[in-house]
């Protein structure tokens, strides 16, 4: 079926439900729809792209499905954490799914994405499977980082996902380095370095930005501004919370991060710009429903009204739902079916991941160095070699 081929190209989530790809009542599955973004883009030293975004019913449906999958995954991770199957740190992305999805819709798997620790959904968007994600969260060997990384360190080399970093802001110079390599490769690819409003004040960011601008690197710095760096509101931490302007000599674009079509438009625009001219900053105005991490209730520094207000007015999944319904691409029950199926997929993945084993204890020593640089460890008598660490 042509429609399913189109969907497979656009979206990378597994298990398409072919029942939903029957011909639609009023719009053909290949026809283009033009939608206006929620708000116009604001540019800094650049002419912003148009507010009108072209999309297709199939693409919109895939957005809905993929974002619902991400939302369900994060909520499931919440309950797994509370039942102590996930330990350590867990930073959830629900509310921000549109950034991961919109970005993917505009780029290829040869482009690189690098982000901080709120990386579960970005990995899923890059082609990670649910089983890999849950297994990694629970520290099992089937995880995308073989269980050695955990929540904060998801990676996927074959789809250009460079992870998953714990130290705030440290991934941005890395992302600019990736762009440097891409410029040499001449494959028309770019790097997206994602960071938060908290990280926007790190000095290394500006160092990397200067280098990228000096050498015209195809680096796109994406500030996922969810307005709170842990518990600190942006106006308390930043003299200028207009993060898209922080690049000064580097142009910037402010985007409504909760509108997946706006994100797609901006990312496409940014990629074209970066390939020709060098770095550009995208500020995604977004929101996270959960606290900073699972140990943060998220309500001590913001009101519940604010959270529920955003959920009602700006939720990315609800926006797409309204679009799908108003353009008669799907009915209410179609969408409910998708959500039920997504829930089932997540539950199956969790069950599968739970059965997976923890990594073997010998893995404690692997990948410190490349094999062959042995360090010997003797017992107290110095006669017997207790271990040779690989």
């Amino acid at each position, binding site marked *: 079926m042509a429609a399913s081929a189109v969907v497979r190209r656009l979206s990378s989530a597994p298990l398409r439900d072919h029942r939903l790809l029957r011909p639609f009542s009023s719009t053909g599955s290949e026809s283009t729809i033009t939608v206006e973004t929620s708000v116009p883009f604001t540019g800094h030293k650049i002419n912003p792209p148009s507010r009108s975004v072209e999309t297709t019913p199939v693409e919109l449906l895939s957005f809905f499905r993929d974002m619902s999958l991400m939302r369900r995954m994060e909520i499931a991770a919440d309950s797994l954490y509370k039942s102590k199957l996930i330990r350590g*740190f867990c930073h959830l992305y629900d509310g921000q799914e549109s950034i991961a999805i919109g970005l993917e819709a505009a780029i290829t798997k040869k482009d690189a994405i690098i982000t901080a620790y709120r990386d579960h959904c970005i990995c899923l968007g890059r082609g990670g499977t649910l089983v890999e994600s849950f297994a990694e969260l629970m520290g099992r060997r089937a995880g995308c980082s073989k269980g050695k990384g955990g929540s904060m360190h998801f990676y996927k080399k074959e789809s250009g996902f460079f992870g998953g970093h714990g130290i705030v802001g440290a991934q941005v110079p890395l992302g600019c380095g990736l762009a440097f390599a891409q410029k040499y490769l001449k494959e028309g690819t770019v790097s997206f370095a994602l960071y938060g409003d908290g990280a926007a004040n*790190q000095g290394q960011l500006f160092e990397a930005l200067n280098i990228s601008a000096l050498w015209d690197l195809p680096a796109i710095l994406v500030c996922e501004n969810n307005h709170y760096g842990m518990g600190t509101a942006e106006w308390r931490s930043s003299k200028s919370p207009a993060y898209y302007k922080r690049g000064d000599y580097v142009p910037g674009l402010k985007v409504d991060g909760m509108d997946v079509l706006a994100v797609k438009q901006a990312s496409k625009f940014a990629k074209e710009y970066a390939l020709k001219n060098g770095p550009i900053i995208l500020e995604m105005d977004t929101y996270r429903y959960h606290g900073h991490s699972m140990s943060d209730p998220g309500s001590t520094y913001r009101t519940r009204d604010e959270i529920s207000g955003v959920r009602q007015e700006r939720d990315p999944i609800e926006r797409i739902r309204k679009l799908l319904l108003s353009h008669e691409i799907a009915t209410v029950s179609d969408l409910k079916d998708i959500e039920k199926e997504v829930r089932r997929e997540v539950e199956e993945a969790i069950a599968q991941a739970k059965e997976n084993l923890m990594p073997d204890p010998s893995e*404690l020593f692997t990948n410190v160095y490349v094999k062959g640089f042995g360090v010997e460890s003797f017992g107290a008598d110095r006669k017997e070699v207790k271990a040779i660490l690989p």
Partner: protein
Amino acid sequence: MAMALRALGRRISHSDRFFSSLSEAAKPPSDGKLINLFTAINQALHIALDTDPRSYVFGEDVRFGGVFRCTTGLTDKFGRDRVFNTPLCEQGIIGFAIGLAAMGNRAIAEIQFADYIYPAFDQIVNEAAKFRYRSGNEFNCGGLTVRSPYGAVGHGGHYHSQSPESFFCHVPGLKVVIPRSPRQAKGLLLSCIRDPNPVIFFEPKLLYRLSVEEVPEDDYMLPLSEAEVIRQGSDITLIGWGAQLSILEQACDAAAKEGISCELIDLKTLIPWDKETVESSVRKTGKLLISHEAPVTGGFGAEISASIVERCFLRLEAPIARVCGLDTPFPLVYEQFYLPTMNKILDAIKATVKY
């Protein structure tokens, strides 16, 4: 040790058992309330800010009390001009603190987790440590105290469990201090803040709630660069600091059941460290074991071992044992294998004693 301390109502035996100290000056006043580590640190900060109007506490999220509650109530009492949040920039925080200290103030900067201290490494090593030296004593940043939670906590993973003390022990001009319990923490922190040298005070985050002890409510200071023998013994000397001491104590108890008498020393100040106390203990026992969470290669145990060999070579009856973290990044799920647990220490004690 932490478990024993939590058993309420055994005041006298606590002080006899854990605070027998060779140094008389180190005996703090004995009345006090049972509080935990973060409360003790909080009290120390209150006293420091009270007694010196030119002292400031700042760092990420300190105003609401800090992620470990060490700074609760400070803003309410001393105001936002003296207790304030900084943006998320460690290099900036420490650089700023050095400048503040250079103007004669006491800057008490918090780095939220020791794992995040590395962006500030240049400022600490190149700016803070060498300021007095390179300016010929014209300027100094002695008022600088950097406080940071360190160490394994059970689920911290790569970036919430590190023990970076040995990096800073390699820098002349700095002092590195690590307390083992609430009473020690309060006295040591006040000494650090008032010490006219830049000090890094690492707080064992595992013990923030876990370690409960009687701590006097008034202002008292414990001397820096003085190690404390917290348990007398004759067969082997054990050295540790911070949270590792409670593991060492358990190992001491287990060894005692096998007839090995262990002498346990809390180093407290890592640089400049109390070589005399350690040397006299090793001269008594002839054997030494050092234990710390940081990886064994290049850890501070290596410095202790080399110095003691220089001083006590002919007295030593066995090679100095180091039971430390493994030479890998701090792992996620393998924490129990990585850490120097009681069984590893007990094994090493037995191997050393039977050498």
